[in-house]
């Protein structure tokens, strides 16, 4: 019986080819949407301008990059992906793609690529803006903030996939994404550093999903720990182990939950 199947299961090369095929089509779709392109370039520039004008406590150069990182991950990556996944599901695009050789994770990743690209571009634009304004200071470490960006983006993908299970239409994503958006903006250290909270409260809040992203970015870019102490490279890494573990844990759990609850077709 098995001889009727010519080729064995294909490992990575096939997967990369398939994801790239889908990703380039999705990127083409994004580039055809001029409003979306302009918005995604304008937003980070406005953020740099606005935060400087308002003068939030996080307004210093590198601190602004930290804020931009968190804001982009939640408002762009997470929100965009929930609406995209839901829209594609309701249009029956996901179900059709599942009839081919693409696997489920490949479909989600390929669909997410344009959003992930815009995420990186936006954070880079903010960093560039800060540098142009002459407010850039040499970071303590760049690997931790990069990990915060990359793993943070992966976390947003799985959380977005999981969130589609309770989001019936692309429009209702405005409401269903609120819990994460609220938690992220108020108690994850994004606009108000967790060091502003009592130590016991901060000790709990650092285990929320977006908190380790902010914590890692602050460690690397500002050399500042959760309780406001200044550290060097070694100190940043030893303080970074807990948030790295928390971030990895959320991503893993998010992935498992997403795999369980994700629906490929509209509810009938």
């Amino acid at each position, binding site marked *: 019986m098995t001889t009727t*199947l*010519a080729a064995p299961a294909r490992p990575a090369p096939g997967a990369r080819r398939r994801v790239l095929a889908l990703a380039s*089509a999705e990127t083409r*779709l994004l580039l055809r949407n001029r409003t979306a392109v302009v918005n995604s370039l304008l937003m980070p520039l406005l953020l740099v301008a606005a935060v400087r004008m308002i003068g939030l406590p996080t307004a210093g150069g590198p601190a602004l990059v930290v804020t931009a990182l968190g804001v982009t991950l939640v408002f762009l990556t997470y929100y965009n992906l929930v609406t995209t996944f839901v829209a594609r599901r309701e249009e029956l*695009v996901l179900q059709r793609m599942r009839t*081919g*050789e693409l696997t489920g994770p490949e479909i989600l990743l390929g669909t997410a690529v344009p959003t992930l690209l815009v995420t990186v571009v936006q954070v880079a634009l903010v960093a560039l803006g800060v540098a142009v304004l002459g407010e850039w200071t040499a970071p303590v470490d760049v690997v931790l903030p990069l990990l915060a960006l990359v793993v943070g983006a992966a976390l947003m993908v799985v959380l977005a996939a999981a969130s589609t299970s309770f989001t019936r239409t692309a429009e209702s994503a405005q409401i269903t994404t609120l819990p994460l958006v609220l938690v992220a903006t108020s108690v994850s250290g994004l606009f108000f550093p967790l060091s502003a909270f009592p130590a016991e409260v901060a000790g709990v809040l650092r285990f929320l999903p977006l908190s380790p992203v902010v914590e890692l970015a602050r460690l690397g870019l500002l050399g500042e720990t959760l309780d406001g102490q200044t550290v060097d490279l070694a100190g940043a890494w030893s303080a970074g182990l807990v948030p790295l573990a928390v971030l990895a844990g959320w991503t893993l759990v998010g992935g498992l939950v997403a795999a369980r609850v994700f629906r490929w077709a509209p509810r009938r």
Partner: protein
Amino acid sequence: MHPSHAPARPAVPPAPEPPAVEVVDLRRRYGAFEAVRGISFEVHPGEVLALLGVNGAGKTSALEVLEGLASPSGGSVRVLGRDPQHDRADVRRHLGVLLQHSGLPGDLTVAETVTTWARTLTDPRPVDEALAQVGLTGRADVRVRSLSGGERRRLDLTLALLGRPRVLVLDEPTTGLDPESRRTVWTLVRGLVDDGAAVVLTTHHLEEAEELADRIAVMRAGEIVLAGTREEIAETQPATIRFTLADDAPPLPAIPTVQVSAQRPAVELHTRALQPALTALLTWAAEHRVVLGGLQARSASLEQAFLAVAVADGDPAAA
């Protein structure tokens, strides 16, 4: 009649290879509702099976298991000897699926859509050739959202056929197509079958089943109530003889196997043995010099058989 025991089509010699599709006692349940209630069938390479039934008969629910998109709640499905869901990577390479409803991003052109799909496949057909086959060459640079319904369906079909599938699952392939497009699709499918593909399709067009299928399985309320070649299915219903008879004609003889369902002047007879019945009738008419006005004799059609079982309410045992 059990569908898996139905004879293969005569043109194909008994195949030593295993069936391309093997479905045994398949069940699908949604909560308390059982949409598919234990159906079994086989499809061999080079063969077309049509699942015929009214809407809600369970055809799509059954196909979703073959496509690997859903788990059965009972029974088993093998495609090329593998489980379409658990051995997904092995099966998908050789499986072409046309969903009843499916979506495509509207802002890609036809050519971009097909090229993208081709790049996700192991051994795709050339894009130009695939578009030419379905008559979409002239529409290659048109955005998908600007296509007509029929053009969309042909594009869907292009994608389903692009990977040179050995097993093809088509859920209502020609619904919404104009007659010419429908012919195009039939020709395409027949070409694939001639090259050895195994095809399972659903339809509620009897003409499509007659045109394409080697074997037909009629589904009703989640069960296969009738299966066989179209001739075998038609034979489950009696043939009909009609004629008019003058009032002064002698009484009709009693012919074995014949039932009289309408009396003179417009006589209607039913029989499962048309030729002997007709011979007896004509012999009697000649002997008695009786004129059988407007004489008609015809075997039962697939449509008659379908209507008799597919839409009959109540007792499934009647089939």
